[in-house]
């Protein structure tokens, strides 16, 4: 059912664990659905003065696909500027895992959402302007979370 790549990331996930003093945190998903993802970001300025992801860690409660997508998004996001990181789509995650079963596609969405939420929180905290696109993503996630929590 799962590709070799998914199983590899599942068995030996990259960058898992919590982070001390993270710059930003994004948590998505719901216990009732069985998947909760939490991404920790350490954000710093690169040589050209742009915000970039210096370090990233994840903690996930969920199925093999949830753990593998979390692991892959930390690989994809690490070292990228926030602008670049926001361009990571769930299709990129699926591609990096050589595919996901149809019933598990939502896990890749969850991983992309966790990253977007972390960056959204950081922009808000540092009073930076938030693109209308990111605002939309945040609204969608919030609506979904509130619905699930009730």
């Amino acid at each position, binding site marked *: 059912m*799962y590709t070799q790549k998914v*199983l590899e990331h*599942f*068995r030996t*996930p990259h960058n*898992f*664990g*919590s982070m001390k003093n993270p710059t930003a945190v994004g*948590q998505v998903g719901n*216990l*009732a*659905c*069985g*998947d*909760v*993802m*939490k991404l920790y970001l350490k954000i710093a300025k690169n040589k050209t003065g742009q915000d970039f992801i210096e370090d990233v860690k994840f*903690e*996930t*409660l*969920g*199925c*093999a696909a*949830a*753990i593998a997508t979390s692991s892959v998004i930390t690989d994809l996001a690490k070292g990228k500027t926030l602008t670049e990181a926001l361009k990571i789509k769930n299709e990129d995650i699926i591609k990096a895992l050589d595919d996901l079963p149809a*019933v598990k596609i939502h896990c890749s969405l969850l991983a992309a959402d966790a990253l977007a939420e972390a960056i959204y929180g950081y922009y808000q905290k540092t009073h930076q302007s938030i693109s209308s696109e990111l605002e939309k993503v945040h609204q969608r996630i919030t609506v979904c979370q509130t619905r699930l929590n009730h």
Partner: protein
Amino acid sequence: MNLSTKSRYGLRALTNLLDQDCCCSVKQISKKEHISSDYLEKIFAKLKKAGLLKVERGACGGYSLSRDPKKITLGEVINALEKPEFICPDFCDCQSKSVWQKIQSGFSHVLNSITLDQLKTSNNKSVYLDYAASTPVDPEVLNTMLPYFDFSFCGNTMSLHQMGSVASQVVESCRVSFANILKVKPQEIIFTGSATESNNTVLKGIAFANKSKGKHIIISSIEHDCVLSSAKWLTTQGFEISQISVDKFGLLNLDELKKTIRPDTILVSIIHGNNEIGTIQDIQRIGQICHDRGVYFHTDASQSFTKTPIDLSKLNVDLLTASSHKIYGPKGAALLYIKAGTKITPLLHGGGHEFGFRSSTVNLPAIIGFTKAAEISVKNFDQENKKLSELRDYLIKNILKTISESRLNGHPQKRLYNNINISFDRVEGESLLLELDFYGIAVSTGSACSSSSLEPSHVLLATGLRPEQAHGSLRFSLGRFTTKSEVDYLLKVLPQVINKFRQISPFKS
């Protein structure tokens, strides 16, 4: 007949070669396998001639397999080294010639169906703890079945000629055997293709045959998917379904059952031993309640048949489902007990087999296997009940002791002797299942049938578990071939596995 030293050494040396990354010299292997290098050289020369080995020269020179080990059969290896024969010489025309031919072809068939690669992986540790999903066919059952694939039993049980009548007699003797086990009349047993088919026949068959009396059917909230889905489908046909709740142990709420039965209720269908949590219902009392109110009572005994005594002469059960592949019989055979006089419409119409209740050519070898399997299980009941319930309780006690935030699902005493279902907080079942699989341990989350669905088990939710608790549950089911050392291996691996995922989880205790 013995396998010659040549063949045994040849196979050992080849599986050894499989473990090597590069070529191996005869000396290296002879040292490892303690085989004289001269002797091994002769064996390798023969294998090379047969095209199974190749030689490479140079620093890393030596022998290696010339083909993918998945494509080399044991038959090829043994034929290259010796010619094991059972066949009479060509000129011979003795009475037993066909017997020897059969042995020879069976012998070759086994050897040609196993590859070198399988031989190697079969030695890897594998612990099967998913007997509730399906069981291996007991070797004694298989031996009983094999002759029935033969020409002499090829007849259709409905044919009038001798071969048809022989086949028919065999099926009738199987019916008698089940009738004796369940203490009913042989004509009340019909053979079907699966427990799913039996259950579908009951729900749809009773519904359509009794709709003039009423359109109300009662099931429980912890039925197998085939009962749930049949019931759901019946609602599209104008029938009304009520689901009776269970308590936290999975026991049916009998007061609720009494209150729910109405004048237009035609059927109550309640699972006997639950497939997920193992809880065994009191079918004596449920049957009495239904009987007092004149409602048919069906019980799905797929998991409990032969694992707990069922004497239908003392129970008010009108219909009962039992399955072959849960009790070391072949897949594709099951039965349905229909008490004489029960009004039921068949699902399958046709040649009128099985007293008209189930048209379809009778699957003779599978039914023979099912019968033998049931006979063995009944004969071994005391012994297996004792062995497996002890192992079950040992496993439950030790898991709960060594793993924090774990709890048993189902009833502590009224449960199938081979079922263990435990919830672990802060982890998710599928990841546990896959990680255990890497250790060679096969278990299940909920039931195997729902492994493609994302929903938490409806059975666990019905016992009052929160969705996240239901998500973190595993079912371990033991069986005839389970050993104490396998259970100990699980007990060693499981805490590590749970711990790994609790570390990854964002929720800490």
